């Protein structure tokens, strides 16, 4: 049963038909307080920062295997905006998804030690995410 290698790997599922998805109204977001969204079965963590920018990354924390990134604390390392996992406190870049502090832990088996970053933007007061456009 190789297809069940990990129930965590939903984020990897490529979408046949890429399309932007409206997640919520901008005024539903509070600066620095993330929310989780379900976009075509993929859990996405969406953040509005105090500079007005919005960011979307995978909600799955690779080091704990729990879908919790939306509940982490935002911050900065030098000029790079960051998000810290609430479980074991790894810090990731909101721009590149790279893990900036592993806290001496390994990611869960089958998971990469970084976050997938999705394109997110605001259009006419609505927050949009495109999960086919990611890195």
């Amino acid at each position, binding site marked *: 049963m190789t297809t069940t290698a990990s129930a965590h790997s939903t984020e990897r599922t490529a979408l046949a038909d890429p399309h932007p998805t409206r*997640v919520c109204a901008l005024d539903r977001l509070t600066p620095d307080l993330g929310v989780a969204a379900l976009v075509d079965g993929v859990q996405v963590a969406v953040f509005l920062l105090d500079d007005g920018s919005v960011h979307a990354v995978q909600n799955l924390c690779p080091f704990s295997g729990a879908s*919790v990134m939306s509940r982490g604390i935002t911050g900065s390392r030098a000029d790079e905006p960051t998000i810290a996992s609430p479980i074991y406190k790894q810090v990731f870049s909101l721009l590149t998804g790279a893990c900036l502090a592993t806290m001496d832990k390994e990611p869960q088996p089958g998971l990469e030690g970084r976050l997938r970053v999705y394109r997110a933007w605001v259009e006419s007061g609505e927050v949009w995410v495109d999960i086919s456009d990611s890195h």
Partner: protein
Amino acid sequence: MGAKRVVVVGAGMVAQRFVQSLRADDTDGRYEIEVYGEEQYAPYDRVALTSFFAKAGPEELLLGSQDLWDDPNVTLHSSTRVAAIDRDAQTVTLDDGSQRSYDELVLATGSSAWAPPVPGVDLPGVFMYRTLDDVAQLRDWVRAKQAIVGRPVRGAVIGGGLLGLEAAGALQSMGATATVVEFANRLMALQVDDSGGEALKSLIQRLGVQVKCGVATSEVVADADGNVGTLKFSNGGEQLVDVVVFATGIRPRDDLARAAELQVGERGGVVVDDACRTEDPHVSAIGECAAASADGFMSIGLIAPGNTMADVTAHRLLGRAEVYFGADTATKLKLLGVDVASFGDAFATTPGALEVVYSDPFSGAYKKLVMTDDASVLLGGMFVGDASAYATLRPMVGAELPGDPSSWILPEGQAERPDVELPDAANVCSCNNVTAGSIRHAVNEDGIHDLGELKSHTKAGTACGSCLPLVKKILNTELEKSGIEVSEALCEHFAMSRASLFSAIQVAGLTTFTDIIERFGSGHGCDICKPTVGSILASIYNGHVLADDRAALQDTNDRFMANVQKDGTYSVVPRIPGGEITPDKLMVIAEVAQDYGLYTKITGGQRIDLFGARLEQLPEIWQRLVDAGMESGHAYGKSLRTVKSCVGSSWCRYGVQDSAGMAIKLELRYRGLRSPHKIKVGVSGCARECAEARGKDVGVIATEKGWNVYVGGNGGFTPKHAQLLAEDVDEDTVFQVIDRYLMLYIRTADRLQRTAPWQEEYEGGLDAIRDVILNDSLGICADLDEHMTHHIDTYEDEWKAVLSDPKRLSQFTSFVNAPDQADPTLMYVEERGQRRPATPAERAELAAAGSEK
């Protein structure tokens, strides 16, 4: 087995050290070790014997870790005396007549208390001061006398040395009066000179202890009941007494060695060479029972040389040649709260030596440095009343002392003290023989940059701890030298410590993170400084943790007011003050657990934890709990957790106070108080201590007269027993001292620093904290009291507040665009009738089963 057998005779401190040292390095298991001790206890800290009176039981004095005695290569036979040694057969005979053979024999029989042969020395009520049983019997005698006489028990101590003064302190602590009778013309004749002795005498008399010097005791006379009643002195004087302690010296216990025809020193002690070997190559002697060549064949009654002998012997058995160079007789003591220290050539016996003396009759301090004739090299010193410079100066003996010598003995602030760089060979920790060089090596070569790790790696500061400030200083100096910044900075955004940030925010009156980081920091913050600021704001203003821009500062636990678990769900803990709960409330908790399928467990803090609640379920669950009259238990916060209690005098046959009632009052008083780390409190209704209060940050234990308050206990990674802060106080005073203790901790501790390390690192330690709290030495008590009153007056249940606020409730949503859907990745299996998160293997199985349907 193939292992050789080492038999250790004696189970005192030095025996323990020997076994520990041998086991640490005997990685191949070349030796099995049998230890025979005549006392009923495992090796205990005899140096700290006096602290027995402030402790709950003998087990708190035990040395080192129990693991040593659980080691399969080590067997400890307590209450077993070795009666004879047969060197030819290499056997020892035990007191039951059985025999044990040895390959190596180590004598660590220590010494026994010696009393002069005056008439009446064996009367009931006359005690020695040497073993745990001695002090336990002394305590029982004083208590029993107290109950009969109806006035303070009259105590006398014969002997004005270290042990005598300790015994006088012990008598005083039990409410007895104390007179110290010393044959020599001054106290502590071995450590201090005439002027020092005079200073010590007046300091001690200020504390209510009477001192008679130059007086010999000629007889102890019985009273009508045949107990000790009167002391008669050589000068014709007399004194009425109810209890007498003889602390007139010790004699090495060398009787076994004498019987085995081993050579003994002129003044006793088994003669050993500089490798601690007796004339028999298979017999060693260590500690006070030994008379080493390096000490001029004199027995030394100090722990540090005993430890060195233990190490030298253990290493020799493993094939490493080491030499015992003789004792460093430097000592630093705190007697009845008075510092006494001497080191090096304290009596200026070196030809041409200069003495630099500072004496302050007002404070009572006496300080002296002994220098070479050109005042350049330090030879020794003596301190009475203030020994703060001891730790730095002692290792400098034989080295050039920079600057003006008097700068070291003038009161602090009156002269600039130069920075000294210790030579590598300087012995920093004399208990464990750790040099400045080996500490530097550990920092620079082994890359150890943390004080705790440095202690466990080098063993420096792990015995008496007096050198710790110096160890810390060396660590910081080395780190600075190698360009590693010894930074107090919280994180990259705040260049100051939590304590500085706390007062900065308080003084500036700032209330939002944006203002605070703009004024005192840089950047946008992070998961370290944000929760710290969130906690500080909560501590200062006691506003809601989710108010205004504060929600974004909180860790997930505080942000959702529940404890996050490994799968991202939360656990819920309603407050159950003092562990007391009605059946009605229990039923509501049970129904909630059942309806939401929550795994249910009783916590160590006497409440109930409900696991597996999803984010979006939390408000519904709390609505039901709040409706039933319950409130947040703050199990998720760095704040007061629980006040654990025993049932107390309302039900218990033994209880002397209402501990459950006290626990509830304390829990309601401090609930919601945000702090640098979690705070746990315990209340016991009698000295049996069923609530284990001394394992808590604050422990309150009932006495016949009121309550004792203990502080700084910790479980966790580094367990610590709480120390006595206030004794026999009434309820209002209990609240007052705890109010102040907690507020001082909240204001000055580091981030995530619990009370035990805070109290240890606070300048001046618990004594200084006590001074702040009880004597208002900083003049801040009114401020601390007001701050706590504000907390109590403004407390609100944070869950109740959220339930009535739609904006905050909207945060408790699974998916912003699909609020009806639960996290699809959560998977559970059942175990023992309840559910738990599936393991990765179980998840794979569950997913497979699902896809086959």
